[in-house]
């Protein structure tokens, strides 16, 4: 299982490259209008909020603690998993995706800062410890997923209400 550092280990699995991270930063700098911002948030909801609660939601109600832990691990540490043309699996944890995808315009928003703190907490969890309270972690992950959706909705509402340009959340 992963050590929680962000570089998910395992055969054929590696985290986002530095070049990819740079490419994302360049893309963000090209966001010239609010529509782009909203679409970037839609991407966050699609790629992070959705998949970080994916396995847990489809667990049977009477699933064992071990099954829950496995599901939470997959949701948080292998949030985005794709296989390339060579069959190589690429996987990224939620906190890496979050840091890569959150629009810079929102980094001072209180909700974004709260999500940031929650992601840091997830990154530091003892993922190899079966005795840890994984049900509490699952609840915290769900809250973080909801917060990402909330952030997206907040910005959308602000845009519809005509509050252009200020995404500080104040």
């Amino acid at each position: 299982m992963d050590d929680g550092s962000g570089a998910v280990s395992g055969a054929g699995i590696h985290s986002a490259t530095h070049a990819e991270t740079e490419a994302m930063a360049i893309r963000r700098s090209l966001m010239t209008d609010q529509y782009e911002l909203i679409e970037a948030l839609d991407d966050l909801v699609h790629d992070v909020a959705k998949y970080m609660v994916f396995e847990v939601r489809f667990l049977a109600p009477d699933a064992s603690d071990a099954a829950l832990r496995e599901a939470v691990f997959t949701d948080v540490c292998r949030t985005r998993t794709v296989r390339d043309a060579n069959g190589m699996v690429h996987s990224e944890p939620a906190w890496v995706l979050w840091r890569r995808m959150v629009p810079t315009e929102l980094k001072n928003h209180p909700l974004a800062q709260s999500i940031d703190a929650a992601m840091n907490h997830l990154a530091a969890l003892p993922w190899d410890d079966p005795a840890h309270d994984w049900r509490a972690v699952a609840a915290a992950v769900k809250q973080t997923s909801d917060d990402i959706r909330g952030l997206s909705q907040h910005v959308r509402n602000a845009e519809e209400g005509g509050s252009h340009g200020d995404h500080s959340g104040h």
Partner: protein
Amino acid sequence: MATILVIDDQDRTIDMCRRVMPEHDWHGPARGWGEAEAAMKDLGRGVGMVLLDVNFDLPAEALLGLEDEPSERSIRRAKRRQGYRILERLRTVAPNVPVVLMTAQDGAGMEAAAEQFGATEYTYFLDHEDIDAHSLRGQVEGILRRRIGASADGPIFWGRSAAMRAIRTRLETFSRGRLPVMLLGPTGSGKSLIARHFVHKKSRRDGKFISVDLSTLPADLVAAHLFGSVRGAYTGSIADRSGAFEDAHGGTLFIDEVANLTMEAQKMLLAVLQERVVTRVGDTRERHVDVKLVVATNEDLTGLVAEGRFRADLYMRLNPASAIELPALKDRGTDWGRLTRFAVDRIGAEGYLMGLLDEYAGLTGQSVNGIVAHVGDQAPDPVDGMVQFWFPKPTMACIREHPWPGNLREFSMAVENALTLSLAEAIASGGHARRTDEGRSDVVQVRPKLVRDQLLAVRMDRSAEASRKTMGIELRAMSGLNKVAQDVERQYFSTLYLEHQGDFAAMASVLLGDRDAARKVQLRFNQLGLRVRDMKERIVG
């Protein structure tokens, strides 16, 4: 078991589907159109369903819909809408395979895109906390059953009476010509269904079927909706947009409640019929349109012409010689037994009873693949894998004697209620068959009292002019309450949807006291297995 292809850039959806629904043969994920096209060739006609993601994170060279030297921004947008492009291509090689779009996107945009590109369904499944393994499975099974249960005539019941046979023959003839077709008849008589599933099909046209219900459009937007508009043509018109005529080019346009046309729109429609060109509101450019026009009304158009509220020249252009009047259900010489069997087949194909059926099958320890109606004095012979709903003679007498003012629409809903309540009763009794069912758990009797009470409630509601405010059914505490509640909830949502003409914000106001909760209501609407397209047919039918 069905062969299901997943088109997705990630592994997680198909992994979960394989785990939750191991009985199906899952293929994929096909990452983009190239792999999807290859998979469709390999699988041939065996594909029973496609699950298609909308957002694809693929390299630019693998994306459909990009110009030669795309900007960073156009690449991002192409990724976010790649599913629609794939669907467009998919339809060229597999026009009839059910396709389910998987998305977290906003409902209205999704609906438009699904309509435009011919998705069978669009769903929020996989992206809502209320959707679990059970409901996901329900959605997939419902779609598969609908496909298996689809009859040659689709949802249209013609019956065997000479009058209905003559109508069908006449309609088929007019469907093939280029002139408009006019459908007359009372509410619920099936005008919309016939336009969509018969006239459009028989016209053998390649274009789309577009339906416009003028009773649901504000008068000042009718012209823009039908003929299109340019930016600034009216308040709130922020971009050029095509109208229904352009959208239906090469296909069929159904205009329901045509008597509601404003005088200005009547003038414009006349010009379209005469010249076969359409001019968007606020524009001068003419666009050629080739559309099979079907209009419907419940009003006396000749009377409106006499009163000067409907243009005589337009009336003549609408080809009144082709007018086909669909009779009220009571006047059709209906074979009620056949109609009942037809309705039960449709309900089975729609999969609406699946939750209750699963619970009943679990209680009685039988394997249930579907439902069928049995009409007669004696209990039916067993049919392998089927639960048989038995409509004995006294129950059929209740059905025959009811006036059915809501016609086929009312009949379909009444039968669905009857099946739901009968199955709920059977579950409440612990799955033990009643004595009248001769001790067989594969037979569920539809009792006359249950049907009588239900129809009486509807009549009482109507007399109090409150039929749209109440369900006309009453449920008492019983086991399997969750399933019963879900079926009742589905009926309630249907009623509200019809009452509010598909306005989810208005429904949210009624249900939650919050118009802003429209998306939440639409999510629940989808989860209950209701489909906007079907409900629209009910509204305009």
